[in-house]
């Protein structure tokens, strides 16, 4: 096979990609108690996919994560965020007033927790999708990284 001289890179990349994805989700769902949050988690998830495309080639990655999926993900993320705002409006509160989501009195925290988690999920989708779209747009102009560029 022609591409065999990148075999170490590919094997190590294969080991690292699942770890990066798990770490991204950890940052996402741990954002309420620790440092980090949806913006960082979205970038980390996007970097996992970019690492895949750097080691296995852009065509392989685009078959696994199609560009249509990436840009749809970004739009859906923004939609989820705005949707929470309209949900709280329909419950009689202000735009993005999480306290109104379940109609709790002040001091009740269920609405706040649910609102923050859903909103951060929206941010995660939007950031991941947008970052992958940007990378595809830039990397898609050159078919593959040539060997002399490494």
């Amino acid at each position, binding site marked *: 096979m022609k591409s065999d001289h990148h075999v170490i890179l590919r094997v190590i990349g294969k080991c690292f990609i699942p770890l990066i994805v798990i770490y991204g989700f950890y940052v996402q769902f741990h954002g*309420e108690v620790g*440092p980090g949050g949806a*913006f960082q988690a979205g970038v980390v998830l996007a970097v996992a996919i970019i690492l895949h495309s750097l080691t296995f080639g852009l065509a392989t990655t685009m078959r696994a994560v199609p560009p249509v999926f990436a840009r749809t993900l970004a739009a859906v993320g923004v939609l989820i*965020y705005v949707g929470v705002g309209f949900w709280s409006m329909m419950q009689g509160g202000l735009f993005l007033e999480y306290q109104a989501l379940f109609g709790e009195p002040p001091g009740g925290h269920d609405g*706040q927790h649910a609102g923050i988690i859903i*909103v951060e999920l929206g941010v995660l989708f939007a950031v991941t999708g947008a970052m992958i779209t*940007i990378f595809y*747009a830039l990397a898609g*102009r050159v078919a593959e990284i040539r060997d002399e560029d490494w």
Partner: protein
Amino acid sequence: MRDLFTADAGPLLINITLLAILFIVALAIARLRSLFAIVMLSGVYSLVSAAWYISVDAVDVGYTEAAVGAGMSTAVLLGAMLLTARTAKPEKPLSKLGPFLVCGATAAMLIYATVDLPGLGDPNSPANTGPGMTYVHVNWFDTGVPNVVTSVLASYRGFDTMGETVVVFVAGLAVAMLLGFGERSLAETLRNKKRKGKEGDAS
């Protein structure tokens, strides 16, 4: 000289070391001509500055710097680098004298301004006495979220964060509209592969 051996010397030495590394990396970036090395060194610069942010207790900022600056920007710059020439043109000596003077004057003014900054962790600084402290006090009753950064970002200033999310989305959209979604090159690659495969069969 005795101060070097007290307990405070550790963080001080770490700060000096990290900032010295930053300075050297910046000098190397300014002097290098190979774009690949410059992209890699800018990733190193982000990583070291992320470490420095953590050493001055700005964990969230350091985390973002490591994820966006060292991870994402390096990958995007690598992709952008492939679209241009691999090396920058060498330039004549003294051709950058004007920009050098402007940068030097700005640096002198910034250093002069740092004299008035409050010390690190000063309880009487504006950041620690104003609305920031109010958030720390009311946050637990209002939201029940342990991380004040998250509750300020997502709850108190949810509208602001919505704007940021839309900015990220629009940035992705704008780049994709300017450069295309990258699918055309995928089709081209597949076509080339197929052609190569056919040639391989023929020979």
